[in-house]
């Protein structure tokens, strides 16, 4: 048996072999491979047909966000609708912002760091601006390819919550960034940070946590149909959609289905009640109570 190893080298315990010796070990050795194949099974270990049965019988994916919001489901079939529904939810939560940066079609988008906003930091103020700039600078220093950082503030349990959305970054990178910032700004270290993976398109998505935790916890209870329509509409409105059509229906299996059809750039500013009706937003669509509420909020009553 001739194994292609360096015969002269005698290994001392705990001592790393020289580079040339190690390189010799990285030459693929057909004879060694043939020997090692003796460890292979002489036949199937588990036939593929059995694998298919295991997969078919595996526990279903968790759809936690739909359950927690009490909405059942947002799409009957197809990723496009699902993504769209998710995007709507994000926009719903954000109003103007933070989550809208997350492309709904992406799978693993990044990591969100959530913590309490120190009381001395006023959004738009000098201190907050400095933290934002410092965060961007520190984030850039991480040199993560195709990444970006968004710093936003949203309400949570009656307090302001500070969110760092690290698009394209994993948890370790997020922890590194927050660790550095907490050293620079001890006020940040006073509160625990929560790290939420952003995996928008994947199974068992945690968007619910993102959504509920950052911006909408107080409204995360079950919604009735009218309230749901109103929320979706408000989200679309905030995001500048136009030609909004919302249909809420109950599917045969008892789940609630929200179909949304809308175009970007819709703004209700300066629109009249007739404009809304022309866009399909009317009492019939939303229900009388929700429609009245909307008109009130838009100042059209």
């Amino acid at each position, binding site marked *: 048996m001739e194994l292609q190893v360096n015969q002269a080298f005698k290994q001392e315990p705990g001592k790393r072999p020289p580079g040339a010796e*190690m390189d010799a*070990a990285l030459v693929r050795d057909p004879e060694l491979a043939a020997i090692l194949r003796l460890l*292979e099974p*002489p036949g199937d*270990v588990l036939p593929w047909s059995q694998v298919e049965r295991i997969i078919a019988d595996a526990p279903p*994916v968790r759809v936690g966000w739909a359950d927690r919001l009490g909405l059942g489901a947002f799409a009957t079939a197809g990723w496009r609708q699902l993504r769209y529904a998710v995007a709507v939810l994000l926009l719903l939560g954000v109003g103007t912002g933070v989550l809208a940066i997350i492309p709904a079609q992406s799978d693993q988008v990044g990591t969100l760091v959530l913590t309490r906003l120190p009381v001395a930091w006023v959004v738009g103020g000098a201190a907050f601006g400095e933290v934002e700039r410092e965060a961007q600078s520190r984030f850039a220093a991480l040199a993560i390819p195709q990444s970006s950082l968004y710093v936003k503030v949203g309400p949570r349990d009656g307090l302001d919550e500070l969110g760092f959305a690290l698009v394209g970054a994993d948890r370790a990178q997020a922890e590194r960034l927050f660790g550095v910032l907490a050293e620079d700004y001890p006020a940040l270290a006073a509160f625990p940070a929560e790290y939420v993976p952003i995996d928008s398109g994947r*199974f068992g*998505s945690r968007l619910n946590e993102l959504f509920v935790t950052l911006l909408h916890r107080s409204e995360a209870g079950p919604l009735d149909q009218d309230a749901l329509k109103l929320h979706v509409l408000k989200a679309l409105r905030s995001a500048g959609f136009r030609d909004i059509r919302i249909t809420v229906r109950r599917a045969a299996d008892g789940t609630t289905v929200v179909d949304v059809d809308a175009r970007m750039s819709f703004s209700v500013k300066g629109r009249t009640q007739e404009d809304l009706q022309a866009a399909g937003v009317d009492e019939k669509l939303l229900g009388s109570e929700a429609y009245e509420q909307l008109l009130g909020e838009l100042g059209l009553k």
Partner: protein
Amino acid sequence: MALQQDLTSARNERFKALLNPVYADCERWAYSLAQDRVDAEDVLSESILAALRGFHQLKDDSAFKQWMFRVIRNTFRQSLRSGRRWPEAMDPAELPTGAERDTDWAEREDRSRTVREALARLSPEQREALVLFHVHGLSVQEVCEVLGKKGNAVRVLLHRARQRLKELMQDDG
């Protein structure tokens, strides 16, 4: 729930599509770890369920094979913690017959048994590194991903494994 059914169905189909091309390798990997057909079958079926549960953690489809190998290895190690013992040298009764292998098998049988015994005396990590690199053709980086080690550590592991194997075989004549 219709949504849940849709998602489950989509997950299962995608998982199958990724697993199918590398399934034979997964079988070989599970068997090389367990060195017993029944144990390998258990490890493999448990690994498939574990992989489905954690499928959302797979970031890059092109790295599915390494990811699945790692799941199998973790499952195997968990089973050890649950009471399964480390595999010893292969039972000669399990050795394939000459008809199942090649015509030179009979001539090689003695030597092969020596090799098996030598392999069994390597550390599990050394054996795993050798199998991943030389049998499955994984790159050093891919071996790192499966074993959860850094590049230099894997290089050292491969070097020492080969050195040790040679020494063991020389000792056995």
